[in-house]
């Protein structure tokens, strides 16, 4: 690793950390000081979290371009996610559900 690469790596690490830490500490301070302007945003905040989760889920199953869309892979992904949901419904265990989804997907991908 060159000196320039090392410095850039440390800068990127510091920048990433600050973008996580500063908002967290600001939010915590607002709550500690009983800032009621933040309270008025709680209704909106209750929707932002699930929206971000849905966005993360959607992105994690979408290829980076339309040209890479593979119907077979999409079907396998959908079936694996259904298996995940069923497993979670039955076991109420996050780890078990993720494992089931992973195994189902792996098996489906091996089918001719």
């Amino acid at each position: 690793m060159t000196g320039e690469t090392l410095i850039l790596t440390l800068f990127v690490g510091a920048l990433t950390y600050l973008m996580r830490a500063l908002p967290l500490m600001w939010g915590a301070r607002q709550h500690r000081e009983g800032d009621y302007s933040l309270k008025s945003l709680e209704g909106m905040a209750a929707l932002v979290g699930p929206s971000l989760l849905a966005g993360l889920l959607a992105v994690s199953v979408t290829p980076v371009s339309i040209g890479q869309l593979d119907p077979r892979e999409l079907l396998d992904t959908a079936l694996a996610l259904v298996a995940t949901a069923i497993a979670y419904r039955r076991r109420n265990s996050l780890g078990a559900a993720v494992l089931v989804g992973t195994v189902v997907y792996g098996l489906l991908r091996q089918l001719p």
Partner: protein
Amino acid sequence: MSSLRVWVRGVRSSFPIALGYLPVALAFGIVSREAGLTPAGALLMSATVFAGASQFALVGLLSQGAVASVVLLTTIALNLRHIMYGPLLAPSLRRCAVGRLPVVAFGLTDEVFATALAQLDRQPASTRSLGLLGLEMGAYAAWTGGTLAGALGGEALVGAFPAVSSALSMALPALFLVLLLPMLEGEVVVAALAAAVVAVVARLADHTALGLLAAGIVGPLAAILTGGARGERR
């Protein structure tokens, strides 16, 4: 419950994240070697940045000879959505010692945030930060360990077990789904659908990071607007 048990439970809850991180971390280790980094350099990058998208972008840009300003601006664009994570988790961490907040902030990746958002409020307020620390440390160990394994012999590993690597790519989508499922009721369904559509469109247009940021804004707006159109009170 003792502090050790709380922490251990946090580490155990990182298992699904670790499953998802391993293939990505392996891939990063391989890519970083191809870009000319040593295994130590790849490990240092994962240990200090701990953000997959930023790391892949950093290695890619460096190998193309990009200037520092481009690298830093790209990092900001890729990480903008993280700005929302802290304020969303802050209410759950209001009893966290002030000195511990900067520590737990380091590990706020997408997957840690998603898990914490869904699970923190189920734990006693006094132990949440310790449980979160355990969650982050488990995820961090998988990320850095996977990077080192990838940098040292990743191609051989993937070549020997291609089916396992392919299967593990489902771990993160499965994790996001089970975290989201319990939240889906009422207007949250509208918000989630709108957010997903925005994120998919942006992803296909090669603007994944901005799409996630937009999802966090468009989703709630869609729910509020449709709820307002139906005249429902929130």
